[in-house]
């Protein structure tokens, strides 16, 4: 049986990769994917702990996260499409209308 710590380390690595990608990348879609990566890292910790404590609730949380992520992906992709249509770019550095 794989110790829980392994899962947590893996999740931490995945999460860190997600953060790094989010900060470094400029393409909106890549950023989007990095968010998904972070979400799934969290999911992994949930499942790991659920297994460790023999509790079902952690797994249920994972389903919620998945549902929310799916909804978010739908909305997010729609936004990306409309941004691309209006600005002909997906570079986040150029999408800065809200700056003061």
């Amino acid at each position, binding site marked *: 049986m794989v110790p829980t710590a392994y899962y947590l380390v893996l999740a931490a690595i995945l999460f860190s990769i997600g*953060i790094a990608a*989010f*900060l470094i990348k400029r393409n909106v879609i890549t950023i989007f994917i990095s968010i998904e990566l972070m979400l799934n890292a969290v999911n992994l910790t949930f499942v790991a702990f659920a297994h460790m404590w023999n509790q079902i609730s952690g797994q249920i949380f994972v389903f919620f996260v998945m549902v929310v992520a799916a909804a978010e992906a739908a909305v997010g992709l729609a936004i990306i499409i409309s941004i691309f249509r209006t600005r002909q770019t997906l570079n*986040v*550095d150029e999408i*800065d*209308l*809200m*700056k*003061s």
Partner: protein
Amino acid sequence: MSPMPASYLWLIPLLPFAGFLINGTLGRKMPRALVSAVALLSTAVPAGLVAWLWATMRADGAPDVMRVVSYPWIQITGFQVDFAFTVDHLTLIMLGVVTGVGFLIHIYSVGYMAHEEGYWRFFAYLNLFMFFMSVLVLAESFLLLFVGWEGVGLASYLLIGFYFRKTSAANAGRKAFVVNRIGDFGFLLAMFLLVLHFGSLNFTQVFAAIGQHPEWQGVRFLTGIALLLVLGAAGKSAQIPLYVWLPDAMEGPTPVSALIHAATMVTAGIYMVARCHVLFDRSPIALAVVACIGAATAIFAASIGLVQHDIKRVLAYSTVSQLGYMFLACGVGAYTAGIFHLLTHAFFKALLFLAAGSVIHALGGEQDMRRMGGLRTKIPVTFWTMTMGVFAIAGIPPLAGFFSKDEILFQTFMSPGPLGKVLWLVGLITAGMTSFYMFRLWFKTFFGESRFEESRDLHEHGAAVHLHSGTHAVMVADHEDDHAAHTGGVHESPWIMLGPLVILAVLSVIGGWVGVPSAMWGHNEIEHFLDPVFGTSAGAASATPTGPGLELGLAVVSVLVAAAGIYFAYIFYYKKPGTAAELAERNQFAYTTLENKYWVDEFYTNFLVIPLQMVTRGVLELIFERGVVNGSARVAAITTRGFAWMTRSQISGNIRSYAGWLAIGAAAVLAVMVFGHQLWVYL
């Protein structure tokens, strides 16, 4: 007939409320016929229910009190107020007046307001008033009564200011509201004291608690509560010193004056005092104050009424004066007499106002009696119905006003101490004045030469005058047809207006027969009817041994005084029309004083309103509003701007920089969570 279930009581206020909601929200789009139908139906059904209720409560073996409790309203430890209604015989009389007279006035309004802009608004407000007034009289606790109390004040405000484009009407509405607030302040304080001393606001609990303590006779806190309640009642029932709003309230449409400012709302103060009679009976000081206020108001307002020229103002001062009578009755412990007068007054004063409205309608908006006259043959139905009202209020037997006013005077005379005799004399003089100014109105309006310059009024002033001088010319552009129809001259009102007049005239004649005292070979049904409510207190005066001779003698005296008033009015305004002017000439000062209403309004303006405004403008606005409120707002703005200046460089619009800050923050939080306890050690 089967008895009415107690839960149906809820329909009595709720149906007018439904009418208000329908007309208030959809009325603008609805045809006038539908608006009238909704308004009439939502008052007719409660009137029918009240009739059923009467039958139920009068049936043999019926309980004296009917209660219905819905659910708790306020519930804190040791204190509870429910949405609860109660009906006893006092409530029955009030309900009868409110729904019965209210319904008649609704019918009348359909005719009177037919050409007015804002028809739906008028009926929505009128229904709103009916709702709150029913709540007021049905309420089982001080708090629920207060809800109705404030609500009728609101409806009154809205209706006084119905012609809101006219500045005087808007101001009158505001004045009524503000003056009433002063009274409400007293009422509120009284409620706080009640909670403090009784821990309850329910009538039954408070009165039962008083009943259990016979030693509480004239104790200070009861007197305090009673006096504060008197302040509230003085505001609502237009007594000295808070009567000033009622004459101005005549700016509202005439049916409103009849319903709210004569028959029902202004009697709420008397109703409240009568309802709290258990409390007042324990405080001789408060009772004496009530009696003195009442008598003073009666004679004071009557004297002003002697010289007013506006037909509605005469009636307004007459109302104030008659309310003074009711106060006087309550003050001498003759609550039954007060309620009896309330009942008869509701009939004849509503009648007088509606008839005056019919006169005004006939003359296309003219309210000044100096420009009336000779209308007897032109508007005969109005004339005859108004005649009934005039005779009734003047106290001519056997019309309604005679019995009720006489009962009050008799009970005042019989009340112990020299005060009773003085108050009786004041009441008697007032009775003379009442019959004088009412017959002055009668002669000036209906007899003599016609002083109405029709051509000038109806052509030069045009439609605006026809619309009771209240509506703006812009509003009436599409009523030219109606207007044209009215230029035909002085015209009798339609039957939809005359019908209620006739019914009220009949009631003004026979309404007093329920209270014929035994000295006049009657049974005084109303006293027996109200016995369960007022118990022994009502009979306090009549319990003293007197023969019927005294009562009859006093009645003869008051009839003679009334006759004298009529005689003088006849001489002054019919036989030798110049006499009054001569008299005014000779007593210039007295006449000007009366005509200017003793300068009370001016006094209030100069000594209360203006200093208050100065304090408001000088202290409150300058120091508090500009200094504290605006200043603190400015400080907050400057602080925010400072912080913004410090952090604005962070708002780069760059998502990745935001995300970076977020990540650093999250890492910091994580670090504190994980290593925080070790940090504490080092610190």
